[in-house]
C-alpha cells in the first residue's frame, strides 16, 4: 500500500530537501517505522515515542489524524505533515 507523504517547506531539510516522499505503509504506526528507518533526521523531529505529534499536525487525505482513531492508511493516498501553528 503506497502513500505519498507531503512535507511542509521547513521540514524538507531533514529529508534531503524532498517535498514529497513515497512509503509502503498500512497505518500511521508502520509509516512512523518506515520514516524512522529511511529518514532518521526527520523522524527525530516529527515523532515522539514512535508516534506523530510533538510540533506537527498530520492530515490523512485532508482529515486531521487526531480525529481518526485508527490511523488506517489502506485506500488512502496522501499524508500531509505540517508544522502545528494557528491563531485567531
Amino acid at each position, binding site marked *: 500500500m503506497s502513500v505519498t507523504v507531503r512535507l511542509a517547506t521547513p521540514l524538507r531539510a531533514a529529508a534531503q530537501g524532498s517535498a514529497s516522499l513515497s512509503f509502503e505503509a498500512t497505518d500511521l504506526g508502520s509509516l512512523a517505522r518506515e520514516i524512522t528507518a529511511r529518514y532518521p533526521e526527520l523522524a527525530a523531529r516529527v515523532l515522539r515515542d514512535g508516534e506523530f505529534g510533538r510540533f506537527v499536525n498530520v492530515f490523512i487525505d485532508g482529515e*486531521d489524524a487526531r480525529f481518526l482513531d485508527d490511523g488506517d492508511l489502506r485506500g488512502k493516498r496522501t499524508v*500531509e505533515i505540517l508544522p502545528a501553528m494557528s491563531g*485567531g
Partner: protein
Amino acid sequence: MAITLERITPLRGLRCRACQVLQPADTRYICAECYGPVEPEYDLAASDANALREKIARGPHSLWRYADLLPVAEPASHFPVGWTPLVRAPRLGAAIGIANLFIKDDSRNPSLSFKDRPVAVALARALELGLDTIACASTGNLAGAVAAAAARNGLRAFVFVPATTDEGKIAGAAAYGATVVRVLGTYDQVNRLCARLADEEGWGFVNFTLRPYYAEGSKTILFECAEQLDWRLPDHVVVPVGSGALLTRTATAAAQLRQTGLVDDTPFRIHAAQPAGCAPVSDAVLDGYREVRPVRDPNTVARSLAIGAPADGDGSVGIIRASGGSAASVSDAEVQGACALLASTEGVLAEPAGGVVVAAAKALATRDVFDDNGSVVLYITGNGYKGTLDAGLLKPPIAADADEFRAAYAEVLG
C-alpha cells in the same frame, strides 16, 4: 521596494521554547532542530529599570512605547495601536463577586480588537522584509486587523475565514480592500489550507511565516496593564483563549517585566476563559492539567475563539499550571448574559469573547479562585460593534404615541 529599518532593539535571536536552541532571526518561523515554536530573545539584563521606565513614559501612546521589548522597530507608516484604557469595574465586580476588578478595554483599537497588536508587529516585520502582501487564517478579528493594516500601508491582503464567520467582520475586512476568502469548514480546516499556502506563496502570512513576530505583539497588552498599575503585575488575569498565543505571550511578557526589573516578582496567576462549545484548553486544565484534546466541531456564539486544535494549547496549560492559575468554560447563554452585564454595568460593549471572559471570571469567583482579594484584570479583546449583535431581544417597534410607549414599557418604568 525593501524598506530598511534600523534595528534598535537588542535582539539576540530566536530561541526555541521546546529545545531551547538559540537561532538566527532570519526568515525561519519554527525551530530548525525540533519544529517547536521560536520566540525572539532580547539582551535585557543590561537595562536599568528606572531609565527604561522613563524612556517608556516618554514613548508614543501606542504599543511602540515598549520598542525595547519588541523584535522590530516602529514603522513610520502605521497608525497607533494599543495604549488602551485599564479601568476599574466596581459595578461589574459587585455583580460577579470580585472586589478588586479591572477591565483592560482592548476593544478600542483601530480595527476594534486586540488583534491589531500582533498585526502591528507582524506588519513591521513584513515591511522590514520588503513583502508586498500580507495574509492570515482567521476566526474573524485577525482578518479585520490584517486588512486594515494592509490598507494603511498600501499592501495587498488575503484573509481566509470559515464561511460561518460573523458577517460584519467579513464585510469589514472586505471594506478595507482585502481579498476575503470564505472557506467551508472549521477554523482548523482553514488553518490547514493556509499552512499550505503560506508554504507556497511568498506572502507574509502573519500567523504562519511571521508568527514569531506576530505573537510578540500580544505581549504588549500586559506591558500596558503593568504600567497602568504603576509598574505592578495584577494578581490575576483572565485571558480569552483561541490559539493560546495571547495567553502564552502574557506569560512571556510577565517574565520580561520581571527580568528587566520593571516590576517586582509578585505572584501573577493566569486563568483561561473559553466557551463550552470549544474549550480544549479549559477542559485540559480542569481535568488535572492534562494534554489538550482537539475539538473537531466547535459550536459556540463566541466564534472568534472557535479554534479546536490550538497550536499553543499545551503551552497554555503548562503556563496556567506554573502560574497557579485555573480555567473556566461557559455556556452560550452565560456568554450573552455576561456581554449584556458588562455593557450595562460598565459601558463597555464587547463581542462574545468579552462575554466569555466576564462569565469565566464569575465562575472562577464562585470557586473562590480570587479569595486573596487581589487585583483581577479581565482582557476585553473585541468590540461588540463588529457585527455580532442581535437585536432579537428587543420589543417590537411602537407607534409615535406616549400611551403606547407607557403600556409597552410599563415594567421598565416601574
